């Protein structure tokens, strides 16, 4: 059901007093749960729950031709399907802009951080490289699908192992795995999306809060030595931002990332270990 104007107004007024319906602080996340694996047929998979928002992600590998401008690099394909199973707002049929944008934002975060070591995914330069397919399926939409989907994708990648490749037949022997993990680097990204509602900035909105949002900015941030770097960003929605507002959002995103990243990264590594 659509959120009514009166609820939106109430949310906005509440936030200005620093209050949220579920008594969280403005920049406080809901409880994050990560499970892995969810499918023993996948190269890697994970399940992420942020409050009532639930997302499943799986990694499968395939072999394909490389792009002509990067002949010895593996490739990445990220898809999100917003199945009507997850919300009465989603419909069957070809992907709509919401799903496309979501997939592309998640994709950029992973790609630009350098989390996947594409150099090591080359089988034969110019001819055959591994393609990493990350398929993301929200199972329950209670807001903040961008952050939840990114987290699920990263956890599934962290969980992934390489399938067996038969050099003679030049084919993948699906269902048989090697002991080798998918080549990853230490630049594991975490996506934080800040939502602006009137003068308030919040993290991790529930569905109604997300509906009251005027604009959002997503930041995919990964560690760089002891510091961090911003790898991908997307401003979504119609309302424009002043220089001051965007500067504050950048600072807030980096600050919050520093607070929550170590624990989340550790949790991902722990639950995805084989």
């Amino acid at each position, binding site marked *: 059901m659509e959120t009514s104007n009166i609820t939106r107004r109430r949310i906005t007024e509440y936030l200005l007093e620093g209050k949220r319906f579920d008594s969280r602080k403005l920049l406080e996340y809901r409880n994050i749960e990560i499970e892995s694996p969810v499918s023993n047929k996948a190269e890697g998979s994970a399940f992420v729950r942020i409050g009532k928002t639930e997302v499943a992600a799986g990694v499968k590998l395939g072999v394909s031709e490389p792009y*002509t*401008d990067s002949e010895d690099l593996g490739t990445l394909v990220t898809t999100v399907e917003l199945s009507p199973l997850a919300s009465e707002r989603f419909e069957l049929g070809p*992907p709509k*802009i919401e799903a*496309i*944008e979501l*997939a*592309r934002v998640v994709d*950029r975060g992973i*790609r*630009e951080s*350098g989390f996947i070591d594409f150099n090591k995914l080359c089988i034969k330069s110019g001819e055959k490289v591994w393609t990493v397919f990350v398929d993301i399926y929200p199972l329950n939409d209670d807001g903040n699908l961008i952050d939840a989907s990114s987290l699920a994708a990263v956890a599934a990648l962290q969980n992934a192992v390489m399938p067996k490749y038969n050099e003679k037949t030049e084919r993948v022997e699906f269902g048989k795995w090697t002991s080798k993990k998918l080549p990853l680097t230490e630049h594991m990204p975490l996506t934080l999306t800040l939502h602006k509602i009137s003068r308030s900035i919040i993290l991790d909105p529930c569905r109604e809060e997300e509906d009251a949002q005027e604009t959002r*900015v997503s930041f995919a941030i990964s560690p*760089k030595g002891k*510091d*961090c*770097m*911003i*790898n*991908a*960003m*997307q*401003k*979504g*929605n*119609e*309302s*424009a*931002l*002043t*220089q001051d507002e*965007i*500067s504050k959002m*950048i*600072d807030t*995103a*980096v600050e919050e990332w520093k607070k929550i990243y170590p624990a989340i990264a550790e949790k991902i590594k722990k639950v995805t270990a084989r």
Partner: protein
Amino acid sequence: MAYTKRFDGRAFDELRKMKVKIGVVPRADGSALFSFGDTIAIAAVYGPRPLHPQHMQNPEKGVLRVNYDMLPFSVTERKKPGPNRRSSEISKVIEWALSPAVRIDEFPNTVVDIFIQVLQANASTRCAAINAAAIALAHAGVPMNELVGAVSIGKIDKSIVADLIKEEEDYEDGEGATDMPMAFTSRSNKLCLLQLDGKISGEELKEAIKAGEKACKKVYAEQKKALKMVKE
């Protein structure tokens, strides 16, 4: 070696030569061509006109609908005709970038359609597209609060540069390339498009946004100049 000299010899904050042509699609209610050097975009505006199918109409305000695409021969390797995931996303962000400037709420139940084609691409196509679209909207006489100007700002190695070209986007030495397309509204000076991919710190990003604001003012001057020359 650090990136101290740009491939095409421009200063770091120098944009490519801009060209604006208004009324390039006489059939449309408004149209414009905008180019940054050899990146050329053309935009046509139709509307406000009744929106069909009817169930998509909004009785509270009009709908702004953007369709961005690239011609198959606008790039080195032929682009398959028709929309793809990239063009759908870019259409949406252009829509978001333009909507703060357009007084679409004055036209309930209607749609303003903006069709954009990239004729020739050498990076910054979404920025050229936004610039063309903003002029085309004004040319169509759609009520607007202000114009929108867009420029791609890049961090190439350690340098912040304005209006990237393809070679800069693909730069791999040192700290590599970070591409940040951004757009500002002309009067309220607000950020209405911001995307980023690459590797950048928070402080550098803030610096880049400042550079973007400055660069967008140059675009605005060019847009305004061209619009003033239009005679009814």
